[in-house]
């Protein structure tokens, strides 16, 4: 099984984050898993890594409905940071929202690879890894 360096989970649902982390570890598809409880924490974490020249995650699983800074606000903040980022980051939306508006909004961001519905199952994670390790 191919692996990536780092997968990042941005979600305010602590149980979900915990369970997803367990699943990723079990599948052994990455070296490290990081998580943030909302968009603001994630943004600050990214910013800090850039400043310290630490690597950023290869894959991001981003929730939309979060307090303080939601998924969309994070996307806008991330785009502001992007000129400073050298490596490729694949962002996947993982939300329990099934509204068509959110899907359409996700499609308008070129940096968002795909819109995923919760729960994210093992098959989905395996497919993502395959896509992101092709080259």
């Amino acid at each position, binding site marked *: 099984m191919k692996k990536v360096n780092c997968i990042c989970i941005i979600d305010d*649902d602590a*149980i*979900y984050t*915990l*369970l*997803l982390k*367990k*699943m990723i570890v*079990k599948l052994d598809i990455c070296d490290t898993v990081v998580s943030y*409880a*909302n968009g*603001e924490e994630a943004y600050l974490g990214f910013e800090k890594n850039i400043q310290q020249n630490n690597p950023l995650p290869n894959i991001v699983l981003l929730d939309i*409905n979060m*307090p*303080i800074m939601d998924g969309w*606000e994070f996307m806008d903040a991330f785009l502001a940071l992007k000129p400073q980022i050298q490596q490729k980051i694949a962002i996947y939306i993982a*939300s*329990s*929202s*099934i*509204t068509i508006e959110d899907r359409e909004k996700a499609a308008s961001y070129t940096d968002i690879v795909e819109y995923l519905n*919760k*729960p994210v*199952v*093992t098959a989905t994670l395996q497919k993502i890894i395959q896509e992101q390790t092709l080259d």
Partner: protein
Amino acid sequence: MLAVPIPSNESERLNALSNYALIDTAAESHFDTLVTLAAQICNAPIALFSLIDEQKQWFKAKYGTNVTETDRNSSFGEYTILQQTPLEVVNLETDVRFAFNPWVIGSPFVRYYYGIPVTDKQGFAIGSLCVLNTTGIPLTPLQKQQLQYLKQQLDALLELHLTKTAAQLPILEQPNASLIEERQLLHTLINNIPDAIYIKDKEARKTIFNHADLAFLGIDNVEDALGKTDLELFGGEKGASSYADDMHVITTGNAIYNREEKIFSNDGSNCYWMLTSKVPIYNTKGIISGLVGIGRNITEHKNIDKILSDREEQLHLLANNIPNGAIYRLLEYPNGHLEYLFVSNSIEDITGIAASDIIKDAMMFKSKIYPPDLPLFVSKANEAKANNHIFDCEFRQYHQNGELRWYQSRAIPKTNTNGEVVWDGIFIDITQHKLVELALQQSENNLNTVFENTEVGYIFMSPQLAFISFNTAAIHFTALEHTLPLQVGENLYHYYPKEHHEKLTLVTKQVLQGQVFETDKKIITLQGEEKWFHIKLSHVANRTQEVAGILMAMEDITTRKKDELELKKSFNLVNEQNKRLLNFSYIVSHNLRSHTSNIQSIAKLMDFADSDEERNELISHLKTVSNALDETMHHLNEVVSIQNHVNINVQSLSLLEYIHKTLDILKDDIQTKNVIVRNLVPQNVAVLFNPAYLESVIINFLSNAIKYSHPQRQPEIELTCYQSLEQWVLQISDNGLGMDLKKHGEKLFGLYKTFHGFSNSRGIGLFITKNQIEAMGGKIEVLSQVNVGTTFKIYFK
């Protein structure tokens, strides 16, 4: 001049004179010779043998003058015959009898007179033999003697004349003086009358004719007509026919009287009408010797006759061809009896009664007038008569066929000296016109009824917005808002404040150009009531498309407007409800699904669990998820119950009481965080609310204010209450963290929205609170600034 004295024996003297029959006779040489001798003997320029008639002095013989006679007053001889001896006047100029004699004061300016009276055998003086000179030198005695001898010679001549006259009288048939005079008069008369008069002999040749006849013939010289027949004078057909007439009269003796003849002039350019009479003349033996004719030019009469007859015909045509009308002349006797002197035949067309029947019985015609209209008719007639002005009356009258029709009669009364009144008038059938008029009036009345009874107020104004007319509804509406009553001549500008005049002028201009202006206007009545009116201004054009004015329609739409506002409100409510439903769907899709997906994940992980320890850990997670799911279900229950309980128990509650209660519940938190609470809500404020909701709402806002207080300053909370548009507003302000409403405004009252990252933020409070307030018919507003504070305004119904 003195009047000449008349001799005492005048009648005998005149008789004597007439015996000689000398007056107006032709000159005779022996008398002439005698006066010539007298002049020569006496060396006088004038010598005369004069006879004194009843009126004049006539010279039988004269020398030195052409005058044949003078009037008696101007005669010298008159004085001579008064005496038996000669009369000598030496200085005529100084003699009172002759000083003013025409011959003395004028030509030949005689100065001396010597006359010897001439008498008949009986001694009656008939005249004088006299001489006159201009030198005034008297005759010598010898001359006087010689003149006396000549006078004796004259006596002899007269004696001879008398004898001769007596002998010749029966044979000569000499016309006497009066006959001559008569002839001369006749002659003058004949030549001066305009009628052509002529006498023809028995061969129809013209022998005598007057100037008019010549002029009629177009001939200048008498000789050209004398002895000619009409055949020769006229020639052609006219000549032949006229000649035949002449010969008919002459041969048969049948006269032609007053025959009208049309005669063309010889060149044919003119045409005359002649009235001709030809009567035969009989001689003493009873045989026709010719005819006398008279012709009168009646062309002018004829023309006038023609004009008159044409006119009469035109008048007749006119009288009988007045459309729907007839003319009449009515005679009203002082006793009230009526008689039609004339009625056009056309009366039959409009009344069905023949003109002749009306003329026969005027009272019958009058009896046809519709009785209710008779008093007006009579009073108008009397008024016209009394004031001598035109009678004009519209009335109904029965047609011969029984139909009731409308007529108009107009007439001028003329009262004559007998007290009779002559009415010259015209009688017209106005039924059609009247029916149209009545129909119009009816429709106008109908319109007026509609206009007056409509609930829409109408004001008709001039282009300058001066009121022309309006209906009752308009008066009523105006009185609601204005103390200035609606009246004709008042101007719309006076009902608007000055600052609106410019707008009004602009609108007026647009309306006059054909636009329709419509608006809904809210007014506050004088009683302070709020009312809504729909105002519509449109222009009104007359038949020639000119703008006659502006029509303002006002409709009370208060009920409609209120319904509309109510509808808008309920639409907003539905909209809100819709949003809540949408939120609900989020809850279902997001919150419930996130729990179920977690349960799925746990189940999946259980399969992969390597140890009991791991499995126990997962089960403990499952419990957490299960609790969270239960809490979410509980919240949903709460939301659904608010949504469902539309008719929930509502009471009048003291706002202050509930605030006190809440502050008591939260007193531990307030003490812990050292919060300053300023409660400025007055005591008397009562709101209609569900008790449980009110407690929940106040707790929610106050606990939020405490929870999200700023860490770097002492928390302050202020509660105030005020009225806005009859609604109580509770305002809760804090100096806490505040929120970025640009970012979160829309989501603020959404379910499960949290903004501060606190672990115990559930994102449920504001959602529930909002639902509760709205369920009670109120609303909620928020003002907030990050790091400054937040103010919530709760509007109670």
